[in-house]
């Protein structure tokens, strides 16, 4: 393989994800897939892929990736992050760097180093790769199920030294695109439908569930533990003969504090499930940070279906949010060696066509929002 992404630093939890695998829960394998499937689709559309193509999912803190390909078009969609691109000269010494904002595509070249910092706004960011990663599907999906140790890249999160093969050897000559009219913000009001085991709680405790403000205490791809002002009490014990777990199932274990099950969840569980997050709110749930506050709101099944169809039509229209980055004349903010030196030199280094501009943000350079060039 001559074209790959060389993972210098993996970030906190960076994994290959697509829209997940269906049909294997009966064998004990959860669906996995992107925590924020809306952002995954957007990342793919930015580089001209099918919306469900595999991409890199980054949680909280991004990786550092060295480009080992003639060129590759990447995109960034979801959380905001500081994205620094260090470009090398022939001798291999770093001779320039640029910060770009996400929600766009960009072409990088052999030897370039892409450093993605801490995420803000959302807990997950997707790096789309034009043409896709050359990772074989497992059970119909390239999603990594970290808990089950299967799928994706050797069934695990990426580690330093991993070399992810690319399907393309070089970027196509398509235009660069950015996202317009879409945000990837978490929701503080998560809508649920009742059940399946709401009858393990009396009315007072169900009311408490909806009154409580919850904070995310720990969170990973398996589940999100919440901590509320008051714990819930079960009226018929907290052990049930295990049954299956749906997307967004909210378990109440013995301590009375909810666990919302995410995409790498176990397929079955033995705690009563008081309610289930509606499918339209699952992407916004996936964006919540540890420490984030939220409340649950009950909706009827009919309302959940209406909201679900609205989400599906929004996903259909997502392509309309992908617009070309038009003017290469828009000043580029970049930095040569010294991070305080702002100039347009990046075009001189790499040529304007490979470094379409307009989306680079001064705010990442000097700590203030700026459009100086």
């Amino acid at each position: 393989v001559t074209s790959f992404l060389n993972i210098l630093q993996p970030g906190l939890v960076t994994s290959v994800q697509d829209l997940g695998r269906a049909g294997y829960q009966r064998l004990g394998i959860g669906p996995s897939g992107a925590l924020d499937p809306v952002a995954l689709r957007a990342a793919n559309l930015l580089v001209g892929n099918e919306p469900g193509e595999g991409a890199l999912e980054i949680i909280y803190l991004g990786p550092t990736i060295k480009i080992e390909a003639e060129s590759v078009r990447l995109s960034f969609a979801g959380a905001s992050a500081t994205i620094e691109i260090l470009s090398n000269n022939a001798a291999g010494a770093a001779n320039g760097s640029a910060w770009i904002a996400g929600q766009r595509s960009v072409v990088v070249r052999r030897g370039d180093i892409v450093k993605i910092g801490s995420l803000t706004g959302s807990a997950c960011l997707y790096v789309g790769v034009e043409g896709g990663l050359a990772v074989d599907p497992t059970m119909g999906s390239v999603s990594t199920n970290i808990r089950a140790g299967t799928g994706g890249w050797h069934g695990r999160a990426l580690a330093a030294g991993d070399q992810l093969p690319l399907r393309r050897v070089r970027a196509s000559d398509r235009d660069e695109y950015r996202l317009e009219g879409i945000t990837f913000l978490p929701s503080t009001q998560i809508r649920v439908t009742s059940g399946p085991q709401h009858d393990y709680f009396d009315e007072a405790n169900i009311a408490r569930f909806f009154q409580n403000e919850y904070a995310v205490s720990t969170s990973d791809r398996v589940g999100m533990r919440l901590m509320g002002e008051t714990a819930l009490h079960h009226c018929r014990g907290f052990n049930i003969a295990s049954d299956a777990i749906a997307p967004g199932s909210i378990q109440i274990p013995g301590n009375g504090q909810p666990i919302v099950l995410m995409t790498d969840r176990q397929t079955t569980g033995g705690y009563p499930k008081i309610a289930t997050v509606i499918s339209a709110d699952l992407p916004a749930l996936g964006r919540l940070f540890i420490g984030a506050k939220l409340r649950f709101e009950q909706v009827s099944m009919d309302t959940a279906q209406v909201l679900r169809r609205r989400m599906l039509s929004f996903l259909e229209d997502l392509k309309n949010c992908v617009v070309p980055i038009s003017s290469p004349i828009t000043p580029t903010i970049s930095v040569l060696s010294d991070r305080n030196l702002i100039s347009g030199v990046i075009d001189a280094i790499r040529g304007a066509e490979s470094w379409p501009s307009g989306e680079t943000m001064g705010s990442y350079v000097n700590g203030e929002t700026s459009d100086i060039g």
Partner: protein
Amino acid sequence: MVDYRLLPAGDAAVVVEFGDTIDRHINALILALDNRLEGEHWIFETVPTFRSLMVHYDPDAISQAAIAERIAWHAAQIQIVERPSRLWRLPVCYDAEMAPDLSEVAARTGLTTRQVIERHSSVVYYVYMLGFLPGLAYMGEVPPELAVPRLQSPRLKAAAGSLGIAMTMSLIMPRETASGLNLIGCSPVSMWHDDNRALLQPGDKVIHEPVSLEEFDIVRTRLGRGEIRVDPVAELREIRA
């Protein structure tokens, strides 16, 4: 008439619950319904468990009312019939070296370790469901005199093949995992195949056959080399739903 409840599990799944206990008759009804639902175009996937069948469906293809009707129609068709069931004979090494909790289980139950092994391996187990990890089969029932609770604090690493018990359930770990079960043995047989198949399926029967450490090593080596393979030893015919 089969008695069940339909419980909502979000806007794209429904639980068909036949009971709230671990019971072979209930489980057999679930597996029979699961079998009947195969081929229903509106279903994405089904997940049978001890007491219920989760049905993941396409809300665009069917209404809630129609789901209730279809399931009622199928449930009414479930007949008590004779069905084949696969019988497996799985080697298990109960040697102390592979059974970190064997002596503790013996102490708790007032039996000798030899008696624990004899009783655990004297039962034909029934596979109720797969869950939690790929290929992890929940088998019952452990003889009542061996019923012990889960460990106070789960062990962080139970090796692949470890056999653990808690209350009425006996499980063999398909891979290394954290586990709160009492580990009393280890099987050299893989519960999960590299080509993504589970060895066992719900409704199967399993006999545990005690082997020595030496035999364990030989079987594991030969399985690894592909010289032998594990197949069901028989198909039991019996009355099931």
